[in-house]
């Protein structure tokens, strides 16, 4: 199998490696020529919430990962355009469909002066996936490595994991099946390196200021729980010459209004997210500081495909057809999120966006068709739907809109159930719902993460939907060595799965945010919304 695919694979990888090598020279903060930098290169960023940990093995949330990518550099990284760029690995190549070799740079060193070696990655990945570590999201990433799931499930020892140090600068990674997007996978913060000696010396306290040793562009200076994390430039970092910011303060303000007030009074340079309902007013008030880039994330409603009423695809289709995404986007949420009529969002890698054919029909025609479908399925007006969401004004507003669409256009009544977030997700996982609010944001840019939402038996498929043919196409796609063929197969898989109407796609997330005009390096075309502080700089002001 491996030799058969080699020619085209080699071609594809040569392009990738060339791009990677080219990226290596320019991937730090790109400062437009003629830009005068401020003498004081410091920035205060609200990061949204308190990191649950700074230990790469234990982090789960986006805010924690954001800080960790400054502290720990993995084999690869993602820059502020969401591109995969070299990290500790200066180059990599795929030896066969399941084997990759990463070449580590010689000048990568820990903040205590010791070199970062391939052995450090072996140790760290084994520690992350060790059942004894009990990392909550271990399986999310274990699934890509050879024996990854067996190790997490305790069926094989950690030494069986598909990662091996050939020498100090060469790391071999074996994957479970073909994982053409492995360089993106290993850019996640959880696959960052951990300093073995320090972890073993301090145990749980190894991430505390004073104890911690890291290899990223920054080192931890201060950590005041529920207040802030302060990092400072790491002089030992291999690319330190291209790192501009000398000090970054991450705040953990959750309350959107408190965040806004800190921004307005000049306490922070970077607002995490504009509070719901305030976008248009702030846009008028701060036209030069407002940003609203699309995020690789999907707002949708999960439909329980096992539910007696929703078992019938005609009912699911009718419910999806009558929701006017245009009004939802422009009038209800009114914060620049784009309407969606398929699984894939704009900018998602290895897939083309698909769109239901009815998306372009006039609403009258859509409603007539939906009514017909319901009549065929024997669903009478007045039938009750049960909608579950987690309590927030934003979700409530959207839910009321959906319910009114179903009521006015189809005559269906909706009973609303507002729950706490933890209760909602438990109910979704247990299939104890009929229609539920859902959202999905990726941690690396590849279509498989979205396809997982509708794959048979996937742990994130709360709809319990299954289209065997689509599943088969996904497997074929991932085995394809030609990226164009892979994209075609995955696109076809998404279309097939979505023709079963397992979910109601609604909007593509965006990140409405305010940033002070003197912050350089922010890019709205960064669908991952990941920003390494090394990509920012402060312009003279």
């Amino acid at each position: 199998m491996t030799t058969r695919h080699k020619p085209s694979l080699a071609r594809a990888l040569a392009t990738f490696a060339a791009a990677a090598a080219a990226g290596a020279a320019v991937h730090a903060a790109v400062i437009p020529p003629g830009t005068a930098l401020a003498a004081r290169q410091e920035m205060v960023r609200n990061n949204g919430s308190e990191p649950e940990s700074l230990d790469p093995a234990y982090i789960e949330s986006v805010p924690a990962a954001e800080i960790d990518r400054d502290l720990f550099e993995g084999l690869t990284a993602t820059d502020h355009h969401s591109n995969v760029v070299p990290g500790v690995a200066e180059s990599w190549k795929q030896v066969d469909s399941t084997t990759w070799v990463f070449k580590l740079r010689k000048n990568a060193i820990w903040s205590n002066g010791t070199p970062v070696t391939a052995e450090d990655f072996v140790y760290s990945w084994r520690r992350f996936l060790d059942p004894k570590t009990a990392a909550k999201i271990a399986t999310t990433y274990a699934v890509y490595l050879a024996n990854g799931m067996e190790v997490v499930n305790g069926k094989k020892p950690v030494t069986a994991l598909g990662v091996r140090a050939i020498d100090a600068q060469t790391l071999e990674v074996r994957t479970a099946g073909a994982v053409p997007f492995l360089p993106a996978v290993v850019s996640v913060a959880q696959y960052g390196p951990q300093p073995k000696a320090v972890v073993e010396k301090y145990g749980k306290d190894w991430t505390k200021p004073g104890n911690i040793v890291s290899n990223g562009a920054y080192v931890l200076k201060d950590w005041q729980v529920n207040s802030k994390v302060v990092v400072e430039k790491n002089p030992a970092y291999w690319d330190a010459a291209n790192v501009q910011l000398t000090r970054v303060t991450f705040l953990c303000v959750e309350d959107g209004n408190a965040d806004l007030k800190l921004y307005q009074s000049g306490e922070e340079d970077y607002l995490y997210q504009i509070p719901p309902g305030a976008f248009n007013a702030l846009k008028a008030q701060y036209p030069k500081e407002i940003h609203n880039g699309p995020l690789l994330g999907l707002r949708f409603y999960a439909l329980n495909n096992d539910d007696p009423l929703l078992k019938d695809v005609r009912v699911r289709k009718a419910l999806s057809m009558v929701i006017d995404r245009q009004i939802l986007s422009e009038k209800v949420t009114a914060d620049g999120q784009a309407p969606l009529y398929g699984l894939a969002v704009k900018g998602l890698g290895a897939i083309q966006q698909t769109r239901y054919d009815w998306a372009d029909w006039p609403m009258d025609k859509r409603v007539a068709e939906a009514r017909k479908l319901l009549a065929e399925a024997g669903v009478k007006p007045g039938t009750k739907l049960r909608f579950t969401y987690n309590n927030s004004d934003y979700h409530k507003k959207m839910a009321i809109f959906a319910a009114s669409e179903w009521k006015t256009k189809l005559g269906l009544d909706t009973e609303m159930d507002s729950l706490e977030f933890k209760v909602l997700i438990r109910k979704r996982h247990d299939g104890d719902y009929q229609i539920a609010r859902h959202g999905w944001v990726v941690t690396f840019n590849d279509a498989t993460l979205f396809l997982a939402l509708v794959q048979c038996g996937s742990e994130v498929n709360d709809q319990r939907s299954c289209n065997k043919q689509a599943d088969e196409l996904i497997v074929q796609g991932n085995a394809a060595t030609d990226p164009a063929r892979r994209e075609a197969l995955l696109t076809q898989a998404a279309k097939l799965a979505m023709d079963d109407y397992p979910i109601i796609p609604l909007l593509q997330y965006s990140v409405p945010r305010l940033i002070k005009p003197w912050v350089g390096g922010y890019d709205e075309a960064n669908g991952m919304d990941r920003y390494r502080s090394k990509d920012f700089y402060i312009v003279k002001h």
Partner: protein
Amino acid sequence: MWAYVVRRLLVTIPTVLAVVTLCYVLLHLTPGGPFDAERKVSDAVLANLQAKYHLDLPLWKQYLYYLRDLLHGDLGASFRYADWSVNDLVARALPVSLAIGGTAMVVAVGLGVALGIAAALRQNSAVDVGVMLLANIGSVLPSFVLGPVLVLVFAILLPWLPSGGWDDFAPRYMILPIALLTLINVATIGRIMRGSLIEVLGSNFIRTARAKGLPTRVVVMRHALRPALLPVVSVIGPLAISSITSAIVTESWFSIPGLGKLIVNGASDRDYTLVLGLVVLVTVLAVLLNLLVDLAYAWLDPKIRY
């Protein structure tokens, strides 16, 4: 009196035990668990996690383990914050809450009592009307209205103070939150002080004191103040507890790393040990403050003896 204090302290033990037990049961009855996340945790990882936190044991056994650790002063590992124990988290948040809540309480009592006295002595005068107006505004305006107004005026329109945040007990970050908590409490205390003093000033023994020709200052300070303080002292207990432990709105509005934020996040994260630890702390604080209030009664009112 010491016997009374010891007796009261001993009663704390069953009180804490009862509260912990109730809270323990309620937490475990609440739907949704600490490990529920968007992506379902796989069975194997869940089993590892449960083993790590002893959740695989029968509930009564977990409970006994918890009590054992509690007796050793160990509040357990946080379910959410992997790098911190509950002891760590509480040890960092309690001083912050005490600094903000405690200072606000002292200022509020001092100011409230003084304003109450001033209003009572000049009943129906401009001073009285002014104080009562302020007190009523303070009572009717919730902290989530008063907070933004303070910030708007003193942080945004007049950029004198930071609008929020915290930096290792730096006073400039503490002024606005303390002011907010003070304003809320001073209203209550001032109103109660005024009413109570007016009532005391109308009683027979005050009339006797005045009849003896004592100056007003002596009548008030020596004879009227102590009995008039009784109702004030009664409210100080609950007010102090809420200032320290449940200043949730204030903390979230000013982004202060105190106990209120931990309580709210702990509950929504189903961080069982964190919530229980905080409940124990609040219970002990409540019992101690109530004890102090009761002791203050005895000092203020000669009729009360323990």
